């Protein structure tokens, strides 16, 4: 045998209506290795992992564990084989606490009575050991996406799995957390666990993975050792062309103030204090302002207050010179506010609607899509979808009539971005717009943001991604514990300096200009 493989997936083919998601793909995972899986949005990565986890049955191909062929009919089978998975979109019970979610299904008990304290001790030990900070008693619906992610990882570690699948675990983490996660993964691999790791971030793959398998449009392209390759080689394998990692843009020419926030305070759902404290800022026409910060420092609540999803405790918001503090969400939207939300499944999409229905979610009531009698104009809805799909390269099995739920994560995100930018807003609020996108798509979205700016729109970007923070905006505001603690010019600041402010080690008085 020579090599011992923990998992072998051989000749896997999985078809969905209108598309071959996996076309004869093979993947071999060595014991104790970290194996990255790379591919464009919709290439079939999540599908392949779902096959391994027993969520889908492949039409062709076999799976071997430790050299023996196995049948994985459902996630329970996978669990018994020691295979655990952190999904791209978390599968947590919203109204349960973090602890309950972690132990769900494997609750320690004595005579049928829960022994939660034992579980709590084990969870907190794991949390401590791997630096995965959680609040075990918080409700899932109240915590940030970052903490949900950590909950998912703990869930997998708690079950003592030996084959760990991470489907885009770093998409929602902060640079700090990503570094920690990389370390955790290395430790786990050193302990003998085998890890499959999906990411669109090439730097991460280069750093942590031993080998990398690339797939494109459902087909196997190749497997390379990361020690013998480069980032540009990987990206060329993935998209079939060179990708420009740097955003090209001209000097910005800020005009009049389009968005002005004064003294905004928003209550927190998770704790008694306010999540946003007396924040003031202005965004002008023709500039991109970025709110940077570590996840959970009030960015989410700030955006919700701004867009009307949460009520303000106090403060004033002006959009294009008009007071919108008490306007409804719809009024704000019609007046020219667009919002690319942080959580695409919770807010961004109606997953059971088709792609075309989702693409008119913000405009369905306009005369173009609804006639005077209140009937929908299906022809226009279809045309709108076809245009946006073409323009933003939204890939799916069946085009406009694809159910949004069946689309790949990155393509769902592209659909939301297409919808929000195409609304021609005056102010575009984009919360982590490139989360989960492949390098090619990120390049395209960044260009779109800059194009909005150049067209005289105001763009407010909220990002956790330091590369994005340094590259895209014209001005950076750092948010820490609900306050703006510093303003920076991306041309003169460094990632290290931003890091200090983001961690709360430094603080400056910011005067809103």
């Amino acid at each position, binding site marked *: 045998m020579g090599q011992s493989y923990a998992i072998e997936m051989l000749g896997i083919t999985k078809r969905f209506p209108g598309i071959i998601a996996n076309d004869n793909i093979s993947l071999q995972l060595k014991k104790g290795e970290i194996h990255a899986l790379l591919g464009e949005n919709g290439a079939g990565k999540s599908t392949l992992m779902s096959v391994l986890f027993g969520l889908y049955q*492949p039409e062709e191909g076999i799976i071997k564990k430790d050299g023996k062929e196995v049948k994985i009919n459902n996630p329970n089978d996978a669990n018994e084989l020691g295979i655990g998975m952190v999904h791209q979109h978390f599968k947590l019970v919203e109204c349960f606490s973090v602890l309950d979610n972690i132990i769900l299904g494997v609750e320690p008990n004595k005579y049928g009575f829960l022994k939660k304290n034992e579980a709590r001790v084990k969870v907190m030990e794991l949390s401590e050991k791997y630096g995965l900070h959680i609040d075990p008693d918080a409700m899932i619906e109240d915590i940030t996406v970052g903490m949900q992610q950590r909950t998912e990882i703990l869930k997998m570690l708690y079950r003592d799995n030996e084959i760990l699948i991470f489907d885009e675990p770093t998409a929602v983490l902060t640079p700090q957390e990503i570094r920690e996660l990389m370390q955790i993964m290395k430790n786990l691999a050193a302990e003998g666990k085998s890890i499959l790791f999906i990411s669109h971030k090439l730097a991460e793959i280069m750093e942590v993975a031993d080998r990398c398998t690339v797939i494109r449009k459902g087909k196997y392209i190749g497997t390379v050792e990361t020690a013998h390759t480069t980032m540009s080689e990987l990206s060329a394998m993935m998209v079939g062309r060179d990708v420009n990692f740097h955003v090209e843009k001209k000097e910005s020419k800020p005009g009049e103030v389009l968005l002005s926030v004064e003294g905004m305070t928003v209550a927190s759902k998770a704790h008694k204090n306010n999540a946003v404290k007396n924040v003031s800022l202005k965004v002008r026409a023709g500039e991109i302002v970025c709110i940077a910060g570590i996840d959970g420092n009030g960015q989410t609540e700030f955006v919700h207050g701004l867009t009307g999803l949460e009520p303000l405790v106090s403060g004033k918001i002006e959009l294009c010179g008009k007071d919108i503090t008490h306007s409804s*969400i719809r009024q704000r939207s019609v007046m020219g506010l667009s919002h690319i939300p942080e959580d695409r499944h919770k807010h961004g999409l109606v997953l059971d609607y088709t792609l075309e229905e989702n693409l008119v979610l913000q405009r369905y009531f306009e005369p173009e899509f609804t006639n005077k009698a209140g009937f929908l104009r299906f022809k226009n809805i279809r045309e709108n979808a076809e245009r946006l799909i073409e323009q933003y390269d939204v890939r799916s099995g069946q085009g406009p009539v694809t159910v949004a739920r069946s689309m790949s994560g990155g393509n769902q995100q592209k659909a939301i971005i297409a919808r929000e930018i195409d609304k021609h807003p005056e102010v575009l609020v984009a919360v982590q717009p490139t989360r989960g996108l492949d390098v090619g798509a990120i390049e395209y979205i960044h260009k779109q943001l800059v194009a909005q700016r150049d067209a005289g729109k105001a763009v407010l970007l909220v990002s956790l991604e330091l590369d994005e923070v340094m590259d895209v905006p014209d001005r950076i505001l750092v948010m820490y514990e609900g306050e703006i603690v510093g303003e920076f010019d991306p041309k003169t600041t460094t990632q290290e300096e931003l890091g200090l402010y983001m961690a709360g080690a430094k603080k400056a008085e910011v005067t809103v200009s």
Partner: protein
Amino acid sequence: MRKILKNEGVQSLLTSLICIIVGMFVGYLVLLLIEPTGAFEAIMSVAKNFLGYSRTNMQLKHLGTTLAKTAPLIMCSLSILFSYKVGLFNIGAAGQYVMGACACLYGALGFGWGWLPCLLFAAFAGAAFGVITGALKAYCNVNEVISGIMLNWIGLYFTNMVLTNVKDASSAYTYALKAKGKDAILPTLGLEEFFSRNKYVGIAIPLAIIFAILVWVVLNKTKFGYELKATGYNKNAAKYCGMAEKRNIIVSLAISGALAGLAGAFLYQTDIEQWKVTISSVPTMGFNGIAAAFLGGLNPIGAIFSSFFIQHITEGGTHVDLTIYCSQISELISALIIYLCGFVGFLKMLINTSLAKSEEKHAKKKAEKGGDK
């Protein structure tokens, strides 16, 4: 074959049919347990209903009665499925139905109104009850099932109280419309003649079908339906894109209530039954609407057929030989069948998983064959 099975519509139809057959079979088993002799005849008379009569004109007459009672059931199931699309389970339809009956009967016997004002009054009363449930849900976050059940009882006793004013002291039943409220009887449009002078057959039947089509159109073709379904699927996304979520909850329950209210009018304004003011249980029509809605695959057009079927076996139950079985048996059997119909969703899931498995086998065989060559 597999392709056909995968089709959503075919699946709905198939699962509904399977439920019906299983339901009948279980009903037969129960009859066998109680009294083996005559069990087969009994279940056949349930299945046959009006077809059990040998003469065509009698068949038509009893078909007419079944149809007359189908119309209100269609309305009830429309009421259920409409709210269900918005993510609400309007179990209060039963109470809204009662309120509809109350309003139309009082309009007819108390105020002496014609049939149209009575219908409108019934719709209004049902809608009013729906609005109460909706407002409680939207503003106080009271679960619609809880408030619906409470309102069912409130509606029942309110109706008993009000309708006591329009009956003879010596009887428990309200006046017959043909005696004291002729104008309120629904027009028969000549249908009466066709169904062997069954004077209960009338405008309610075509109206119910028209309402089913209307509901389908509203849900699938209008902006309003788009909003309602979006709210039902994902409340947060509906809020995010600025849909008036609270208003939509209230409006959809108001419409749902109006449909249920009309159901009450469609039954009592044919004069086929009088209201008994001493009853102490909510009429089953509203609850049967739940079964009809699910059996019909939550599709308004499907609801027409499922309602007819359920009414068919309910009526069929009255033909069971009561010299062999006790008088509750008819209701027991039809209730059994109706509740087994609720398994439609479960069956669909079964079909889909077994489909996936057979596909897998098929693919494997193909691969093996391919390997041989």
